[in-house]
């Protein structure tokens, strides 16, 4: 029988395809029109933290180093008020098998796929996750297909994306390269249907559980080094899985540190635009993912997203492209380590925040990623220039996304800026209201929505007046 492969027909079969490709029935967690039993869904996957750590150790994941960035801390103190300038630490997640924390996220999915007898795994991603799935699949004896958005209508792919595709192939994966557009999900569904492989989605409970080990390790390491808990942890934020998993792992370790999201501000650029595609110098960790996923997590390739960042987020700092490029270069020159853009986004956020914190406080950057040809700030800037974008030194606030990148002249110009958390929460409520009018929400829906934005019912009632 030939199946209808039109966009509409495939999208209409999405629930059926998802169920088959994960062996997971999301319907059982449904509690109301909006609410579902999040904790039960997370617990049902059946892995304790000890299980996760054991499974990850089998495939070269976890137990990554924690470094104190003494020179960067000293530099920040020089531009801060007396007594200010927190100690900055960096968790070197580039040491995981595929060169990023995403190995944690892929490890449990690959383990489950092998246990359940799937022959292969598929993931739709433009990022490090593809390489992570490919690396984990290789170690578990599974075939792997990565579906990746790579090129614009002129056939041009920006260097970082090209490098990420190369790395997937290096681990033996088939890489399906697609032009710009949200139909990536359509083709993912078609490929899942064709192959019968496991859907190693970024947003399943397996993916998020895998990151809990990072949060736990981080707390243990800081306690060991400093004899106390960190005061703040900065997480580069895109889809929300990094933040959610890390925060859950920290909470499991009894740590109450502030969880701060950090994204590169790419406002003004459309994520599904063919024209804008090659005019952004960051492929992830930016507001194009960070804001929509925070304010409505369920816009993903699974029925309910296990990455629910607003449940755990205390603060959200934005940095611009020029600031991150400056800090990336500074990290190499002051600390003697070259690392890729994702972790350096939160290093930039940490520099901005450390200036406001006291000297005896501790701020942790919870990830780094590998760097190399294509995935490097010099590659990105040289490419941006070729695409007609002005690159110069100056006040980074003068940079206009898609037109110019202004690299700071001085560390004191690295300031970041805060997102209004209240505005994000209201935006979440508006998205929830699109599912069902708030006056029709049941008690369980109301409890769920309040918890999903880390607030109580009193706040909810008052905030709903604005929606």
């Amino acid at each position: 029988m030939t199946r209808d492969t039109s966009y509409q027909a495939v999208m209409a079969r999405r629930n059926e395809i998802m169920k088959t490709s994960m062996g997971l029935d999301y319907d059982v967690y449904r509690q109301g029109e909006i609410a579902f039993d999040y904790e039960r869904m997370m617990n049902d996957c059946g892995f304790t933290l000890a299980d996760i750590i054991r499974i990850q150790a089998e495939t070269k994941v976890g137990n990554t180093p924690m470094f104190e960035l003494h020179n960067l801390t000293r530099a920040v103190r020089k531009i801060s008020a007396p007594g200010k300038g927190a100690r900055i630490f960096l968790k070197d997640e580039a040491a995981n098998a595929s060169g990023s924390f995403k190995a944690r996220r892929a490890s449990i999915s690959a383990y489950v796929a092998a246990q359940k007898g799937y022959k292969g795994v598929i993931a739709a991603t433009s990022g490090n996750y593809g390489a992570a799935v490919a690396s984990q699949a290789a170690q578990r004896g599974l075939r792997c297909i990565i579906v990746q958005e790579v090129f614009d209508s002129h056939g041009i792919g920006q260097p970082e994306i090209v490098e990420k595709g190369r790395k997937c192939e290096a681990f033996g994966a088939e890489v399906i390269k697609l032009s710009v557009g949200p139909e990536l999900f359509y083709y993912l569904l078609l490929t899942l249907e064709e192959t019968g492989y496991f859907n190693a989605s970024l947003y399943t409970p397996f993916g998020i559980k895998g990151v809990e080990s990072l949060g736990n390790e981080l707390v243990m390491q800081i306690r060991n080094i400093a004899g106390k808990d960190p005061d703040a942890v900065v997480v580069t934020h895109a889809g929300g899985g990094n933040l959610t998993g890390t925060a859950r792992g920290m909470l499991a370790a009894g740590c109450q540190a502030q969880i701060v999201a950090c994204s590169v501000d790419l406002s003004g650029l459309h994520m599904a635009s063919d024209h804008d595609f090659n005019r952004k110098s960051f492929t992830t960790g930016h507001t194009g993912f960070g804001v929509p996923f925070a304010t409505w997590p369920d816009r993903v390739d699974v029925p309910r997203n296990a990455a629910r960042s607003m449940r755990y987020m205390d603060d959200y700092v934005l940095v611009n492209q020029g600031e991150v490029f400056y800090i990336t270069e500074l990290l190499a020159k002051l600390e003697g380590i070259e690392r890729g853009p994702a972790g350096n986004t939160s290093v930039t956020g940490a520099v901005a925040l450390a200036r406001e914190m006291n000297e005896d406080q501790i701020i942790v950057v919870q990830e780094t990623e590998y760097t190399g040809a294509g995935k490097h700030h010099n590659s990105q800037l040289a490419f941006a220039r070729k695409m007609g974008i002005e690159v110069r030194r100056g006040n980074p606030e003068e940079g206009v996304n898609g037109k110019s990148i202004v690299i700071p002249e001085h560390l004191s110009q690295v300031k970041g800026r805060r997102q209004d958390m209240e505005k994000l929460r209201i935006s979440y409520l508006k998205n929830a209201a699109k599912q069902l009018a708030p006056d029709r929400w049941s008690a369980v829906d109301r409890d769920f929505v309040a918890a999903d934005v880390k607030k109580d019912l009193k706040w909810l009632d008052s905030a709903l007046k604005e929606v």
Partner: protein
Amino acid sequence: MSKIQAGTWVEIEKILLTPDQRAPQVPEDTRATPYIMKVAGFLAADADVGSEVEVKTLSGRKVSGTLKVVRPHYEHSFGETVEELLNIGLGGEL
């Protein structure tokens, strides 16, 4: 030009959706273009560049499309030197 031999590592291209078949939420500039897929694999039978062919991919799938590139390879690099970066971290910023 001689035919490309069966078994050669090649890249094919295929239009998955024409502009009028694209998803409703796609912005206008993207909608003006077809949705295209490229994938590499081993050529099933001798063929000319530009002809319709079938390949066997690394996962073992058989996919058909237009033969575009013979022995595709990577050329991405660190890019031309960006001089604006060179003096960062040498003391001037503090």
